[in-house]
């Protein structure tokens, strides 16, 4: 990724849009933050590196009515495609600046690698991360401190773009391996799975960061986790309610989640929320041969049907 | 076009009474450039006696051979004898349909059958995996005197759920193959009526009556030769023709050739090589060959299944 090229591309686009959304350096060396550029000098702040972890496409539906340019990685571009599939954005209002991506960092993983010592600086070179703290310097292969989604990334290149910055890349790992983690989890017994989720979801503080960061949570302000009509959930700090909420989130994303990983990234309690949606996506692929965010002409599987479903078989009672 | 990498399971009859069938198939395959791969140390499929006595035993005897093919790593196996084909395919089908049956059968075997082998009759293999176009290619000679009534017998196409080949009520695959090598075929109604099958030994009376019907219908339709794809049919129609004549007061004298022998003749193999001399009824001048006279190519007859697909 090359920040100069990106800035150049963004500046070219800027006059024709109201805002260009990119990322700039955040409050410490480990963080980047979204940057809403409306002036050329704002664009000068744009960076392009594995620190750019945000899925900026998430902001698009909330900017309805504006002309927006957005910088997206391969995975983020699936969000754009899914928005188009669901009619949540108008193609003509969005300019997509695509950036091929060879992986981003997971802030949590980097911190763990250096035992949470305050970071002095971080730099990247050929998929190697160099992290300096006041006690040490570590060189780490990027994929070792990248989020899970990067290690099996099938879409390093944007699937949709108006401007492409950089060279296209090859997918990492085989397509079959994408769901290996899910399959492995499924080797556990039902009891183990239940315990696992009771423990991890038990940490949930219902801050709704996962929901609010989720690009495809269309309800946002009308989310049934908080409404009284309909009254699906109480406000109690109860394991059942937490389980219910996360199942609602996952089920509402069935056949829609583009696996951008924002829910998991933003969770302050490090709950592996992406797994829930990934599991359902795996089913969507097997049952309906559908992968979200790939083809803007497709329709998400929960809003269509076939009279004769090829893969659904009548369940027998034992 | 389907895969040609299939094993070839000749079956016991083709070592004995049906040796001419085996010889002619091997020559035809050679002419078509298809390698014949015989599973090592195959055993009898069990045939009618096995399933007549017990399904489980029948399943296991057949499945042992499927396991051999499985070991060869091939996609499937073709069997020239319909009885072998039916035994192998029925075992495969019932094991695929019922896990309980599969488990029971595998309990009897040394090596379990995994259910991956595609079983076809050799007729089907030649018709579908090689195809009429390929079959026509090696033709060198014509058989101008021959008017063939193809006889399919009972279990090549039946029951359709298991056989999964051709139209069970009006099969045309053999007709199309024989036409493809330039030999005239005649249509008649009894091409899939039973000839009496294995009752030749214990209930000759039945075979005589049934065979008599088949032969008379074919002759009435103008045939001077019958083509078969089954050693047992060949035996009933040819070897027992004299018994039929004696019992029914008829005087049939119609040669009964394997379809592969007819194909072989047009490919230029000699009657002797093809084992035609092993037949009882002498084909006489019917097997005299002549130069190929070009004629308007007839469209292959459509089976019901093929017609459906086309529409």
């Amino acid at each position, binding site marked *: 990724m090359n920040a100069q090229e990106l800035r150049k591309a963004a500046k070219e686009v800027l006059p024709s849009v109201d805002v260009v959304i990119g990322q700039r350096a955040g409050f410490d060396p480990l963080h980047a933050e979204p940057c809403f550029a409306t002036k050329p000098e704002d664009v000068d702040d744009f960076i392009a590196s594995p620190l750019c972890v945000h899925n900026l496409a998430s902001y698009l539906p909330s900017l309805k009515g504006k002309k927006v340019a957005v910088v997206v990685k391969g995975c983020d571009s699936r969000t754009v495609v899914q928005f188009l599939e*669901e009619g949540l954005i108008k193609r003509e209002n969005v300019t997509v600046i695509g950036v091929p991506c060879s992986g981003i960092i997971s802030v949590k993983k980097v911190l763990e690698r250096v035992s949470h010592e305050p970071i002095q600086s971080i730099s990247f070179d050929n998929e190697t991360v160099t992290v300096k703290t006041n006690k040490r310097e570590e060189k780490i292969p990027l994929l070792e401190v990248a989020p899970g989604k990067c290690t099996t990334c099938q879409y390093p290149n944007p699937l949709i773009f108006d401007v492409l910055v950089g060279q296209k890349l090859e997918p990492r790992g085989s397509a079959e391996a994408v769901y290996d983690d899910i399959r492995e989890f499924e080797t556990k017994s039902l009891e183990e799975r239940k315990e696992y989720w009771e423990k991890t979801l038990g940490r949930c503080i219902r801050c709704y960061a996962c929901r609010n960061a989720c690009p495809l949570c269309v309800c946002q302000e*009308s989310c049934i986790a908080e409404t009284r009509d309909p009254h*699906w959930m109480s406000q109690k700090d109860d394991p059942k309610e937490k389980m219910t909420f996360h199942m609602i989130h996952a089920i509402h994303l069935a056949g829609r989640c583009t696996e951008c990983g924002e829910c998991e990234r933003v969770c302050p309690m490090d709950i592996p929320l992406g797994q829930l949606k990934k599991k359902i996506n795996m089913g969507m692929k097997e049952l309906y041969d559908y992968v979200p965010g790939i083809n803007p002409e497709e329709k998400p599987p929960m809003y269509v049907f076939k009279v004769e479903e090829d893969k659904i078989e009548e369940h027998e009672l034992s | 076009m389907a895969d040609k990498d299939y094993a070839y399971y000749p079956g016991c009859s083709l070592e004995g009474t049906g040796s001419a069938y085996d010889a002619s198939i091997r020559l035809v395959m050679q002419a078509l450039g298809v390698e014949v791969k015989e599973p090592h140390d195959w055993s009898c499929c069990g045939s009618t006696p096995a399933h007549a006595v017990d399904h489980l035993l029948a399943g296991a005897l057949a499945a042992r051979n499927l396991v051999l093919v499985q070991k060869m790593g091939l996609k499937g196996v073709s069997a020239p004898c319909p009885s072998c084909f039916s035994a192998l395919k029925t075992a495969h089908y019932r094991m695929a349909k019922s896990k309980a049956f599969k488990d029971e059968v595998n309990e009897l075997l040394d090596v379990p059958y995994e259910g991956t082998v595609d079983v076809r009759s050799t007729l089907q293999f030649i018709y579908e995996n090689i195809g009429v176009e390929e079959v026509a290619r090696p033709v060198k000679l014509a058989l101008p005197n021959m008017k063939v009534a193809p006889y399919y017998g009972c279990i090549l196409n039946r029951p359709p759920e298991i056989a999964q080949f051709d139209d069970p009520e009006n099969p045309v695959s053999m007709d199309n193959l024989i036409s493809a090598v330039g030999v005239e075929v005649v249509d008649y109604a009894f091409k899939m009526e039973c000839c009496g099958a294995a009752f030749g030994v214990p209930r000759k009376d039945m075979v005589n009556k049934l065979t008599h019907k088949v032969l008379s219908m074919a002759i009435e339709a103008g045939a001077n030769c019958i083509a078969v794809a089954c050693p047992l049919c060949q035996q009933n129609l040819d070897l027992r023709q004299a018994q039929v004549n004696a019992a029914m007061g008829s005087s049939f004298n119609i040669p009964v050739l394997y379809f592969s022998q007819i194909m072989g003749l047009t490919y230029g193999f000699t009657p002797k090589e093809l084992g035609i001399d092993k037949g009882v009824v002498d084909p006489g001048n019917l097997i005299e060959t002549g130069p190929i006279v070009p004629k308007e190519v007839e469209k292959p007859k459509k089976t019901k299944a093929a017609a459906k697909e086309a529409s």
Partner: protein
Amino acid sequence: MKVGVFICHCGNNIAGTVDVARVAEETRKIPGVAYAINYMYTCSEPGQDQIKDAIKKYDLDRIVVAACSPRMHELTFRRTVEKAGLNRYYFEMANIREHCSWIGEDRELNTNKAMEAVRAAVAKVMQDKPLYSSSFAVNKRVLVIGGGVAGMQAALDCADGGHEVVLVEKSPSVGGMMARLDKTFPTIDCSICILGPKMVDVAQHDLIKLYAYSEVEEVKGYVGNYQIKIRKKATYVDWTKCTGCGECMEKCPSKDAYDSFNFGVAPTKAINIPFPQAIPKKAKIDPTYCRQFTKGKCGVCAKICPTKAINYEMEDEIVTEEVGAIVVASGYGLLDIEKMGEYGGGRYPDVITAIQYERLLNASGPTSGHIVRPSDHEEPKTVVFVSCCGSRDKSIGVPYCSNFCCMYIAKQAILTKDHMPDSQSYVFYMDIRSPGKGYDEFTRRAQEEYGTKYIRGRVSRIFPKGKKMVVRGADTLLGTTVEIEADLVVLANAVTAAPGAPQLAEKLHISYDTNAFYVESHPKLRPVETNTSGVFLAGCAQGPKDIPASVGQGSAAAAKVLSMLSKDFLENDPAIAQVNQNACVGCLKCVKTCPFQAIVEEELRGGKVVAKVIQTVCAGCGVCTSTCPCGAIQLQHFTDNQLLAEVNALCLS
């Protein structure tokens, strides 16, 4: 909130295995229940009066009746509470009969189950909201799809009732299957002689607008207000000019066109009038055979036509009609006999279908009523009829009985003898089904007076032997195989749904069964209504039936239409979806999934886009409600909160 609960004994039906007194006692403990009582027959007049009295006396504002299935008496009790001044939706039923007392054997468990059912009903009724119907104006025109005898009857009855009728017929003439029949059973009336006048009535009725050779392209709208697009297929003949003189047909040089009216018994001309009594009696060109189309030159008909009606450039035309009600009488199809390989269907010329035989018998048919074998045009002496050809045959996917074959076979056997006194007919049958008035006598007559030999058994194979067709079947009464050497074999091939029936159903939003016959609202009590209000059924589109039944249904459907159109305004069912526009986020997923296109996009002031339900179109299925992620669209009377109240009442303890 004051809920009143009435627990019915239903004589001993409920009280026999449920301790109703205990159910009442426990119910009284439920908060919100102000009154609960058990009573012998709650649905009786005194039972209903008791509810009304209690509402007044105890100031009840919600009512639960625990009794039989709501599918039985919900409407009854809704009216009761309405008469007592409550909104009819402040009412719930707990099914403690069909779902409880009749199926469980343990009195204690049944009683407990009944108590829980009541509890859930109480929980729901407390969430119930008053709902009110709204009314809308009705367009009093009627669309009839299909110009067979059923459709014509419906059209005539509606038109006689004073309503404009739009009749759409797919083929070039009305008349349907009945127009092809020679005689009708059991009276041996000439079919076209009794149908012809009806066809003329259709043509001449001031209020009937006939679209022949046309098909329904699109149906939009809802009961009382449908917009119909009709495709008028190109005939290449200007029907406003065509006089039906038939000269073109006489001179047309293309002589081997397929005659669909005669089911291919003989060829026809590329330009033709289907039959002499056709209504409208107009010519049409079949472009697959017309030389002007296939070879690019000919033009004979154009030259010869005295009114210059021929127009080779004609194209399909779409017209729009507005109606308030629809009668679907789209008829039936016949099984393709090629599916019966063992009968040589399609391979042997002397194995024909019964409708083809009907055309052979018909004096105005292609053979002028002479029975001849297709193969050599000789008169057959031995005719074998095979009934249940495909019918009642699971293996080819027609598990049902085709209803009228038994009768027409008897008729055809009788007519065969009439035409050829020295002939012999045989009928293979599995059962003789002749339950109509005079029907069984008729099949007896075929055997007793006309000497038809009935053989009880199915035919296994038909094959040629010389000039004969050998029919090999079983005579199960003799217990063996029988063979008949026939000159002609007639197959009573199964009645199937009309080709394209599912597609038409989908346009109309009506349901069809696995055999593609249309499904009525209730097989006994609403036999001509569909689940889409305003759409009615008549004739064989709903299932195989004979002429009197079809005519009867045509009239019945017309009666339903007339009663509906007797009102100027209709009321909608208020149990439909409603959008909370504050909560709606405008994702419009509901619009995508609504099976009725009842939801549209609406832009509010300020630019916010939300979903909007067209009240009259919504059928109340609730797919939108389960689609909406934020619960902003709620199916009234089955809202999330109402169902959750039931779930919670049953699960939280």
